[in-house]
C-alpha cells in the first residue's frame, strides 16, 4: 500500500463513496449507520443545503461530530433540525413525493435490488429472525434508492429469502406491475464497487470498481452472475479531506469500525 493513499476501513469507504452520490439541494431520507454518516459527510463537504430526513420524524437536522445517534428515533437526531413531526407524517412525505433519495443499509440483496432484513431461511420457520423492515419497506416502495452494504457472497444472493424492501422485484416492469409506480433502486454502493441497474432488465450492473479492486474479486464475492457496464470506471479513492471529516464525525468509530 502506498503511503500517500490514506488507509480506511470498509465502512469508511462505503460512507465516502455514498456521500459522493448525493447532490446539493437534495432531500435524502436516511437510515441509521452508514447512511446517516454519509449524508452528514456530504452536507459538510459539497452539499451544504442537502436536507436530511429521519424516519423518527426529523426534517433537516445537522448531526454533531462525536454525537451520532444509535437510532433515528433519538433526540440526537433532532440536533439543529428545522422541524420535528410525527413518524407517520414524515413517512407520508415519501408518498407525497417530496423526497429525492432514500438511503439505507442492507443485510441481504439480490440482483434486482430486493432487500431482506427479515428472515434468513424459510420465513415460516426461519433459521434467523432478523429485526424486520422499519421504514425500509416504505422508503424503497416510494423513493429512488441508494443502498450501502458490504460486498459479501452471503449478502449478494441470487434470490433473497424474503423481500422486506422491494427493489425491482423480478425485473422488467414487475415493480410497476405490482403497483409500485414510482421509485426504485438507483445505486448500490459496496466496499468493492459502485453498482447501477439496467434500465430494461432492471438487473444489477457494475458501473465502477474501487481502486485496486478486480472484476474477479467482485464476482468472487457475489452469489450470482453480476454484469459489468461497458464503460466500467474506477472510482477515485477517498481523499484525506473526506476521511478527515468522516473521522471527525465518528471519532469513536460507532458506525465505521
Amino acid at each position: 500500500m502506498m503511503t500517500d493513499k490514506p488507509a480506511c476501513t470498509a465502512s469508511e469507504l462505503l460512507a465516502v463513496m455514498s456521500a459522493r452520490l448525493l447532490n446539493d439541494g437534495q432531500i435524502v431520507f436516511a437510515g441509521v449507520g452508514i447512511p446517516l454518516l454519509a449524508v452528514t459527510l456530504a452536507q459538510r463537504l459539497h452539499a451544504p443545503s442537502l436536507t436530511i430526513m429521519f424516519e423518527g420524524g426529523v426534517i433537516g437536522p445537522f448531526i454533531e461530530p462525536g454525537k451520532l445517534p444509535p437510532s433515528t428515533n433519538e433526540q440526537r437526531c433532532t440536533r439543529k433540525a428545522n422541524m420535528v413531526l410525527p413518524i407517520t407524517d414524515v413517512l407520508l412525505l415519501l408518498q407525497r413525493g417530496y423526497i429525492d433519495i432514500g438511503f439505507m443499509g442492507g443485510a441481504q440483496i439480490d440482483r434486482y435490488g430486493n432487500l431482506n432484513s427479515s428472515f434468513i431461511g424459510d420465513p415460516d420457520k426461519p433459521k434467523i429472525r432478523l429485526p424486520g423492515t422499519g421504514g425500509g419497506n416504505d422508503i424503497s416502495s416510494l423513493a429512488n434508492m441508494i443502498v450501502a452494504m458490504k460486498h459479501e457472497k452471503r449478502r449478494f444472493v441470487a434470490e433473497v429469502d424474503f423481500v422486506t424492501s422491494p427493489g425491482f422485484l423480478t425485473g422488467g416492469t414487475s415493480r410497476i406491475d405490482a403497483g409500485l409506480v414510482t421509485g426504485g433502486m438507483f445505486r448500490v454502493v459496496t466496499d468493492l464497487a459502485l453498482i447501477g441497474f439496467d434500465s430494461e432488465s432492471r438487473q444489477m450492473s457494475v458501473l465502477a470498481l474501487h481502486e485496486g479492486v478486480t472484476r474477479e474479486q467482485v464476482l468472487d464475492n457475489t452469489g450470482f452472475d453480476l454484469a459489468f457496464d461497458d464503460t466500467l470506471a474506477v472510482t477515485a479513492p477517498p481523499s484525506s479531506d473526506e476521511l478527515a471529516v468522516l473521522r471527525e464525525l465518528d471519532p469513536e468509530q460507532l458506525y465505521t469500525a
Partner: protein
Amino acid sequence: MTDPLQVKPYLDLRAETQARDRGLKEKVMSLEEAAALVCDGDHVAIGGSTISRTPMAMIWALIRQGRRKLIASRSIMSHEGDLLLASGVSSHVVTSWFSQGIVWGVSKVMRLHVESGKARFDEWSHMSMGLRYRAGAMGIPFMPTRSMMGSGVGERTRSETHEMTCPFSGDQLVLLPALNPDVAIIHVQRADAYGNAQIDGLQFMDIDIAMAATKVILTTERLIDNAQIRRTPDRTRIPFFTVDAVVEVPFGCAPHECYGTYEPFFDQMDDYAKQVSADPEQGAANYLKEYFYDTATWQDYLEKFGIAAMLDASRRGRSIYDD
C-alpha cells in the same frame, strides 16, 4: 372473543367511547393502580419508539403484576419488547422492527422466542403501523396507502389487508385495517391531573395511539397544574378526555431516553446487551429478577442505575436545548 387486531365494528367503537367517563376529572393514581386497568389478553399499544420515550415504568408495573397474553404493538420495539416476551407478559408483537437497537445487533431474546415459535411477530411497514393507528384515531375502518405492495411484508399480511383499484385514478392501493388498541401506554414530559399532555420534541405515533385506543394510561415526568396547560393550549398533544390514568414517574423511561430530559443510559443498555447475548434465556431472567421483580418501588428500580448514571443521562438529555 373478538380478535383485537381486527377492524372494530363502528357501533362497538362508538358505544365503548360513549361509555367512557370523558368529563374534566382528576385521574391521578399510582403505577400499580394504573397497571390494573390493563386486562389479560388486551392489545396494548406502546408509546415512543425504539429507546425513546418508552413507558418503561408502566411496563415494569405490568411485568410485576404478571399480566398475561397481551398483544403488544409499537412503531419499533427495543429492549422493552425483549422483556415483555421474556417475562411471559406477551407472546404476540405487532411492529415494524424489533431489536434492542442497531448498534447492539439482532436481539437474541427476540430470536429465541420467535424462532422457537413461542412468540408471534407480525411485521408491518413502519408507515403502515402509523396509518393503522391513524385510521383508528380518525374513526374510519381503513387507510389507503401506496406502500407494502410487491414485497414479502405485504404478502405475509395480505390476509389482513385488502387491495383496491382507486375509483378516481385507477391506481392500485392497499387498504390497511384500522387499529383501535384496548390500551395505549404513553410517557410524556408534562401532564395535568386531567390528562392533558404536552410532549416535547419527537412525537412518534403517540398522538394517534392515544386517539385510537379505548383506554389511555399516561405516565409523566412532571405533573403540572391545569392552568399551566391552558397558557399554551397549542402545545397540548393529547386531550384529557382520551386519558384514563395519570401517574407521575420521574425518569419513567430509564434506561431509555426522554426528549430534553435525559438521554439513554448507554452503559446500562450495553450491560443488558452483554447479559442477554451471552445467554438470552438466563440473561433476561436475571435482568428481570434484578430490575423488575426484586425492586418494590420505581425508586428502588432507579437506584439500580445509580445517581452517577442519572446525572450523566440528564446532562446529556438537557443539552439538546443548548445552542
